[in-house]
């Protein structure tokens, strides 16, 4: 993989001054592994969260580059609620390793959405992560944790699954690879 990525870097360097832009379809790496689906179960009068962690492999050699921006340009999820009423939201955490995503500050907080009974609610996920995670995206890999958070103000359990349906991260670098 390293050699292949280096080949990509040669292409980058050969193309003169400019930005190297990587559109990473994170969801495509999660689909088929079950990581795109997060079951949730929230007892009455409580809050709870559930999450999944995904590693993202990045081209090496950008350690000296300047990260212009990191954005989620395309992102969406379905809250497939199977019972109860409450509010559900999403949080994204990034770190250099899997464990670090549990202590990292929130990089993106998607506002809560109300769910009630058996229904599917579409949620949009987008935002600018620049400044918060720049240094991570200069490394060879980065770990992302997607957490579904919810509160239950009702009398019955809130149950269901959140299913990611799209997640594309766009990284813009001023490449300095020499």
């Amino acid at each position: 993989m390293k050699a292949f990525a280096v080949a990509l870097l040669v292409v980058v360097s050969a193309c003169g001054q400019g930005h190297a832009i990587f559109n990473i379809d994170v969801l495509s790496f999660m689909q088929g592994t079950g990581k795109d689906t997060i079951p949730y179960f929230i007892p009455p009068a409580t809050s709870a969260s559930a999450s999944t962690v995904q590693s993202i492999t990045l081209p090496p050699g950008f350690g000296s580059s300047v990260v212009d921006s990191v954005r989620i340009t395309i992102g969406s999820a379905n809250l497939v609620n199977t019972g109860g009423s409450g509010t559900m939201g999403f949080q994204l955490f990034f770190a250099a390793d899997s464990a670090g995503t549990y202590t990292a500050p929130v990089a993106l907080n998607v506002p809560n959405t109300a769910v009630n009974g058996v229904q599917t609610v579409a949620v949009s996920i987008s935002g600018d992560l620049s400044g918060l995670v720049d240094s991570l995206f200069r490394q060879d890999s980065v770990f992302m944790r997607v957490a579904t958070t919810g509160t239950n103000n009702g009398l019955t359990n809130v149950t269901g699954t959140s299913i990611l349906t799209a997640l594309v991260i766009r990284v813009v670098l001023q490449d300095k690879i020499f």
Partner: protein
Amino acid sequence: MRTGVIVPALLALTLVVPRPVHAQFSLDARRIGMAGVSLGRDGSARRYNPAYRAVKNRSGGGPGQPKVTIPIPLGLITFFQDHPPTHWGSDPMFNPDDSAFNPVELMNLVLNPPLFYELKRAPTPTNDIEFTIGKNQLIMNLGQSRVLIPEQKFGLGMNGRLLDLGYGVGGVHFGVMGFMNYEIEFALDTALRRVLRDTVPVQPDSTYRILTDAVVQTGFMPTVSFAQRLTHGTGAVGADSTESADDGLYIGGAVHYYLGATYARGVGPAGFTVGNPIFGAAPGVLLDARAQTSNKPFGKGVGGDVGVAWISGPFEVGFGINDLGAELTWSDTKIQRIQYDAVGDSISVSTTANHVETKTKLPVSYLANAAIRMGTGTTVGGDVFNAGRHTVIHVGVEQRWSLFALRGGVARDQRKKMQFGFGAGVRLGAFGLDVGVFTHSSTLSETRAMTLATSISVY
């Protein structure tokens, strides 16, 4: 640190590169104004046609031609204003650590040294490039830089003679020439070319390859050459006219004993293969190259040049061919195999043979030229040149009125692109001032540049 390497390398290349393009255009604004054609018997004709050693020198299109031509390097003035040498350490042009450093711009500088003033610069790709990566998706959008991906086999080459020292007696000339030859060829397979040039997505279960063949060799060659005028034209017998004094048939030949100083050659495919899905597993790297390097100097070989020229009144034609049979035998060569080791994700180099004999060849070059002086101050000429790569064709005309001259020409360059030139000159006493404008594609761009050349001639 890197700047310290790049700048000397750039300067060295700048000194070397003008020589292979010499046949396309020179430092003479008169020649440049005719898109590179030479109407005289300048160094280019003698370089490629040994018969011209026997022809009286006439460096221009007619009588009263300059003894020497001095280029006026207006481009260097502009270049050093924009890039003061005292600031080269921090100049983005030479500093890879600078975010504005552009390797294409630096390469363009090497390929097109800024001797003359650029009226219109070829654009340097400064656009963004974009990669779309998914588990089963890889798209490379190189933007404007796609023009840098060749549609066909792409190569760089030079076969130059770096010096020519010697002494002649009669028609025989003894000398020593230096030679330097490099040939670098890349050939992308159709699939990879479409991925890079046409932004076609990488397909699962596919292989993408680039074939490379590169050789560099240099050395010197003791030379014995002979040139003789075989016939005298009827107008030349006792002729006082400069027009007819040179009439006749000329032949020439040279035998070179090549003594190669060193050489290196690398041949092999490289590329990558992807599975299904594309990033289901790490893409495999393909690399299985062979490298040959000389352990000792003095690769030996024999080759020669031949040429013929015929002059009849206002008409002149010549043909010269160089480095015939020039094959060098290197008695002590190391052959290495360079492979990608998938297990260690590294490059392995192993010696497959050592102290073995290998051979290299120098490309055959030829120059055919013709010119006719039409008696009304008009001279028309053309030449066809090939140095082992694509043929270059120049056609040009000069019209003189007393002290003034107008010039124009067209050319087909090594990239098979049409180029154009025009210019003018004035002679005042012993000095002349000439300007020439020419288009060229000497940069890594599909767009032509236009350069203004100026030179002073001393009569």
